[in-house]
C-alpha cells in the first residue's frame, strides 16, 4: 500500500515518517518510530493504555490515524521527563507505589498530565473522572489517585516543573 510522508512534532522533536493510510498513531509510534512506551491494551478506545496528548488534547492513539498527525504535536510518556529528571507526576507514582505491573502507567501518566495541565488543583472526584478512560487491573486505583493528588500538590508548591518541556503545544 502506498505510504505517505508525514511530518510532526513528537515530544518536542521534529519527526518525519512514512505511514500507510490504515496505520493508527499507536502503530506509528510503536512500530515505525520505536516509541514503545505507549501501550496497546484493546485498540478500541476502551483501556487508555495508548493515551497520548495530541495538540494539547488527551486522545487514545489507537483511535487516531497516523495520517492525522501531519503538522501536529504529540506528547508521549517518553517525553514526560526532562532528560534524567523525573517530573512530579512520575516521582509521585513511584513514591505512592501507584503501579504494580506498570502496563497502564504510561497511559495514566499522560492522562494525569492532561488533567493537571488544565486543572492544577483537582478534587478526588475530578481526578477519578479524568482518569475514567484508563483501566488499571492491578491497583484498584487508590494509590494512582493519591499519586495524582500528591503530584498536583508538589507542582502547586513549585517543586519541580509545572509541566514537561514540550514545545510547540497548541491549546
Amino acid at each position, binding site marked *: 500500500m502506498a505510504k505517505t510522508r508525514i511530518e510532526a512534532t513528537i515530544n518536542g522533536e521534529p519527526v518525519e515518517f512514512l505511514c500507510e493510510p490504515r496505520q493508527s498513531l499507536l502503530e506509528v509510534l510503536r512500530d515505525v518510530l520505536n516509541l514503545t512506551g505507549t501501550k496497546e491494551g484493546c485498540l*478500541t478506545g476502551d483501556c487508555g493504555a495508548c493515551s497520548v496528548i495530541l495538540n494539547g488534547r488527551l486522545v487514545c492513539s489507537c483511535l487516531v490515524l497516523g495520517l492525522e498527525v501531519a503538522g501536529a504535536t504529540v506528547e508521549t510518556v517518553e517525553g514526560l521527563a526532562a532528560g534524567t529528571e523525573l517530573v512530579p507526576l512520575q516521582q509521585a507514582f*513511584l513514591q505512592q507505589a501507584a503501579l504494580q505491573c506498570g502496563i497502564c502507567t504510561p497511559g495514566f501518566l499522560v492522562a494525569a498530565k492532561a488533567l493537571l495541565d488544565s486543572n492544577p488543583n483537582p478534587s478526588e472526584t475530578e481526578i*477519578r473522572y479524568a482518569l475514567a478512560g484508563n483501566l488499571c487491573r492491578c491497583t*484498584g486505583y487508590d494509590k494512582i489517585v493519591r499519586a495524582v493528588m500528591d503530584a498536583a500538590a508538589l507542582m502547586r508548591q513549585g517543586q519541580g516543573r509545572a509541566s514537561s518541556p514540550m514545545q510547540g503545544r497548541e491549546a
Partner: protein
Amino acid sequence: MATVTNTSNGTYKVVGTRPLRPDGVDKVTGRAKYGADYSLPGMLHGKVLRSPHAHARIKAINVEKALKLAGVKAIVTGRDLPEGENKSVPLGEMSVNPRHLGHNILARDKVLYQGHAVAAVAAVTPYIAEQALELIEVEYEVLPPVMTVDEAMASTAPILDPELRNEELGDQPTNIAKHTQLKRGDIEAGFKSAEIVIEREFRTAMVHQGYIEPHNALATYGSDGRGTIYCSTQGPFEVRGMSAAVLGISPGSIKVVPAEIGGGFGGKTTVYLEPLALLLAMKTGRPVKMVMTRAEVLRASGPTSGSHIKVKMGCTRQGTITAAHVWLAYEAGAFPGSPVAAAAMTVLAPYAIPNVLIDAYDVLVNRPKTAAYRAPGATNAAFAAESVVDELAERCGLDPLDFRILNGSHEGTPHPAGPPYKRIGFIETCEAIKNSAHYKSPLKGANRGRGVASGFWFNAGMQSVAMVHVHADGTASVVTGSPDIGGSRASCAMIAAEVLGVDVDQVRPMVTDTDAIGHTDVTGGSRVTFATGMAVFQAAEDVVRQLKERAAKLFECKPDEVEFRAGTFAAKSNPSTSITIKDLAKRLPRTGGPVTGRAAVNARGVGPAFATACIDVEVDPETGKVEILRCTIAQDAGKAIHPSYVEGQMQGGTAQGVGWALNEEYVYDSQGRLLNSGLLDYRMPTCPDLPMMEPIIVEVPNPGHPLGVRGVGEVSIVPPPAAIANAIYRAVGIRMTELPMSPPRLLKAILARRAEDRTSPAAAARA
C-alpha cells in the same frame, strides 16, 4: 497518607519499610520492555484463525489459496502438532494433559468454543497475515453447543470429548471430568443437632482475569536446533515445558526470556501463542511475533469458571455451626481443569465445622478452557457460603463478625480436607475489621447497607532458585527466575539487604531467563515473596557465610570466630578489627575470588492467608445500580516485607472482586457466541466506580518462613462479592444469589419484590 496498617518493622532495618521499587524508573518513563515491545530483524508476524462456532467438527481445512498470497511464509494447523499423550503429567503449577493442551493450542478434529484456534499464519506484515486468514477455507459440521454446567451434566447432553471418562461412571461418555468429595463427621447427625438450617442455591458468571496487556510471544529458531521465546508470562519454565510438550521437542532446546509482564492474575500461567510462534519460526527460519487482540484475549484465553453452587448450613440458636453440605459444579471450559477442587477446599476453610460434606464437579462446556484466576475457585464458592453464613448470623441475632469469630478456624482446627491448621490469622482479620474506624462508624441513609465477608487461600510454596552476587564496590545483585508482576523485585532486594545489613539501594534485583537460573515455578499462588524470598534469604545467608571465611583470612582467625552484625564483620576475640561488606568486597580477589551465594528451595512451611472485607453500598432502587461507598479489607500477610505493595495487592484484589460482584460476565447467545468480547461491554471497574480502599495489614507471622511471610497476592479477591451481596441485603432487603449483581439483575429483583409486596399483605407488613 491515610493508609492504615499495623505493621511494625520491629527488629528489622529494611523489612517493613517502603523504599522506591528498583524497576520503577523504567516503568514511569516508558523504557520498561514488555513482551509486545520486542522486535527482531527479519521478523514475521503471526495471526490465528479462530472458530466462529462454539461446537463443530472440522471436516476439512484448505490452506492453498492463503499460501499463494504474496508475503505468506507458513501456515500451520492442528495436524502439524504431534498428538500428545492423553494423561496428566506433572508440569507447571498443576498437572497438564498434553493432548488437551495441544488441542487447545490448535484444534484437531473438533472446535470446542467460539475463538478456538484452527490455524496460524506467518507473513511479512500483520496485515498480510490477517488477509491470509480470510483465504483459509474450513469446512465445519456444526454441533449443538453446551453452554452451562446444568445442560452439560444432563444425561442427554451432547458430549464434547467422546474419549472423556470419569472414575465413577465407568465406560460411559460424559462431560463431567471429575468428581471430588470431601467428607468429615456425620452430616445427617450434624443437621439433626442444628436448630437453624439454611439452604440456598447460587449461580456465578464466567469472568476474565482482565490483565491490560494482551498475550504475546516472539520466537526464534536457529539451525542449531535451539529456540528462544520472548514473552510476558508468569512462568517461563512452564512456557518452556508446555511448549516443548505441545511441539514434541525437548524442553532443553528452548530458552524462554521473560519480558516485563502487564498483569496475569493466573491467566498467564499457561501457553497460547508461545508454541505457535515457535512452530512458525521453526517452519520459516525467521523470528515470528504474535500478539493477541483484546477480542482474542476474551474469547480464547483462560477466563475463570462460572458456577452453580448449593449450600446447606445449620447452626444452633447460640450460633455454633454444626453441619455444612456444599455442592459445586464449575465450568471447566472446553477441556478438564476448572478450579473446583480448590473451591471445595476453600469454601468452608474459615470455619471449624464438625460435620462436612462437599461434592465438587469439574464440567466441560463449550467455552474457552479456564485458567487460574487469583485464588482460583475460591471467590465463587465464598460468595455462596459467606452469604449463607451472613443469613445464619442474622437468624441467631449475632453480629456477623462475632458469628465468624465464634466459629472461626484457628491453630489446630482441622481444615475441611483433613490436616489441622498451624498458626493462622483468620480471627485476627475479623477482629481487625471489628475494631476498624469503618466498622465502628454509623452508616446512615436510605438504601444503604454494610456487609462483611471472609475468604481463605492456601498460598503456595514450590520451587525457586536465587543467586546473590557480590560486586567489587560492595553492591550486590539478586538474580531469580520469578517474573515480577507487582513488586517482587522490591521485596527480594529488601530481603537480601536485610540479611546483608546494607541499604536496599545497594542491592539490584533482576529476573533472568530459563538458561540462566535453575527451575523456578510460576509467579502465582502468592508464592514469590514467600518461596523465592526464602531462596533469596538463604542465598544471602550463603554470601554472609562465605564472607565470614574471607574476613577470617584477614583477621587471621577461624570463620566461626567472625561475627556479623549490621553489615560489618568483626573478630569476636578482637572487636576492634572490623570490616564492612563494602571494604571486604574490595578484598575478594586476594582472599579467594568472587563471592556468589546460591540457594534452591522446594519451599515448605506455606502459611495460608485469610482476609475479611467490610463494604458499604448504596443501591439506586430505580436502576439497580450499586455504588460502593466505603471499603475496608483486613488481610493476614504474615509479615509485610514492603507494606505499600502488600496494600497494592489487597486493593487490587478487592477491586477485581468488586468487578466480579457487580458487572463482569461472559454473555453468550444461544449459539454459544460471545456477545461482549471488548472492554466496553466486558465492564471492569474504572476509577470513578471505586472509592479509596482501606487496607489493614494483619501480621500473624508464618512460623514456616524465616521472616514470617505468608504471601499476599490472592486472598483479597475472595470476600468482596459476598460482602457486597450482604451489604445489598441490608440496603434493600434482597438476598442476591447470582453474580454479577448487575443493575438489570438487581432491578429485576427489586421490581419482583415490589410486585410481591403489592399482592401480598403479609409481605407488605414485613416491608
